[in-house]
């Protein structure tokens, strides 16, 4: 869906849902997730509805993702780091309140 403007951009390896993937180095985690086209990113904790990054500037809280074991991090507010472990929050019943 999304294409890189600069196809020569440096790539780094990260982990998504247990699989190693390559993404551009100097972009946000949310941009990387869109680049990987791995939607839905998560399901709503209440309704179970499929969600995706929306505002890309930290206010809508739609791009929440588990990073290195910490849940509910805003992917748009963090840059990609080599080796970071991302996990999509796909199952609504596995949240903190379950």
């Amino acid at each position, binding site marked *: 869906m999304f294409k890189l403007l600069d196809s020569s951009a440096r790539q780094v390896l990260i982990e998504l849902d247990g699989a190693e993937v390559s993404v551009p180095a100097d972009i946000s985690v949310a941009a990387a997730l869109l680049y990987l086209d791995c939607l839905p990113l998560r399901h709503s*904790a209440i309704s179970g509805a499929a969600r995706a990054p929306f505002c890309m500037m930290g206010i809508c809280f739609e791009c929440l993702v588990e990073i290195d074991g910490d849940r509910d991090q805003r992917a748009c507010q963090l840059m990609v780091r080599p080796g970071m472990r991302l996990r999509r929050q796909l199952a609504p019943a596995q949240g903190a309140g379950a």
Partner: protein
Amino acid sequence: MTRQVIQAYDTVIVGGGLVGAAVACGIAATGAKTIVLDGGDHDFRASRGNFGLVWVQGKGADFPAYARLSGGAARQWPNFADELLETTGIDVGLQQTGGYDFCLSPEDWEEREREMSQVAAHTNGEFEYQMLDTNALRERIPQVSAEVLGASYSPQDGHVNPLYLLRALHQRMQQLGATYQSGQVVQSSSRQSDRFVIKTATRSFHCERVVFCAGLSNQRLCRDLGMHIPVQPLRGQLLITDRVPAFLPAATLQVRQTREGTLQIGDSHEDVGLDESTTLDVVTRLARRALRIFPHLAQVRLNRAWGALRVMTPDGVPIYQQADEHPGAYAISCHSGVTLAALHAREIAGWISSGAQDPLLVPFSTRRFDV
């Protein structure tokens, strides 16, 4: 100099928060030409910072008339919410499935038990409650820590989304013909022969009746018409978390889960004057207490916090006052604008419209402070 514009109304309501808007609905419904004068966006606004509880538990333990008033107001809520939905299309999200107030120490438990039995006695048993020990509580809400001693519970409590409520009341009062103007801070009020003159920086409003529902400003505003309204700010800080799966079957005084899944953590009380900032120590204390009750929330992310100023009378009981020297001028001061909303839109608006004495409201005049 701009010329002062004079406008005439039957009723001027000073304050467009939950109290003013509710009263305006009831008064406008009688056909009276009504205007609501509201202040600025940066004024202290309890209505935009509150927790959203419909709460009867413990109210009026030492003031029988308040226990009855509050219980009666809460019982009207289901019908009031339906009415707002029907007329405005706004669902204020009433969930009146009961409320829990957790006891974390033996002293908490004793005090709670005393309050509950008092309120039940004052209302001839109309107020229903249970004291639940740890096991009984954990059967209802399994996520509660075994360290919690128990909770008081009343099936009559509940919660709404207070912002939707404010919006619904504003829409309703305007449907009923009331005019709303913001940025109209009242500077002075006086009586000139048979009418009141209410002045803002740019306008003068002439009216037969004036109702002050201006929160903390009632103290200053009502003085002009001879009413002494002793209200003080009491700060509450409130924490907002990410949305989590629904786990609370009912409201609690300490933690409320919105319909959208967000947790609100609150119930702090600080006497710090006109300061609505947040402080790290209170935010920490609120978060720690929430975790003592619900340890499973440890990994939930906190998104923001805010402070708001409650409007407190010396005894915590509402003031419903008609000016002795200036009949037609009224003051309403309370900190339970959500719980009492239906009462304000109905009985209180009726009392003001009729101009008569209401024996049920006599205990709520400021005469109780004159010693």
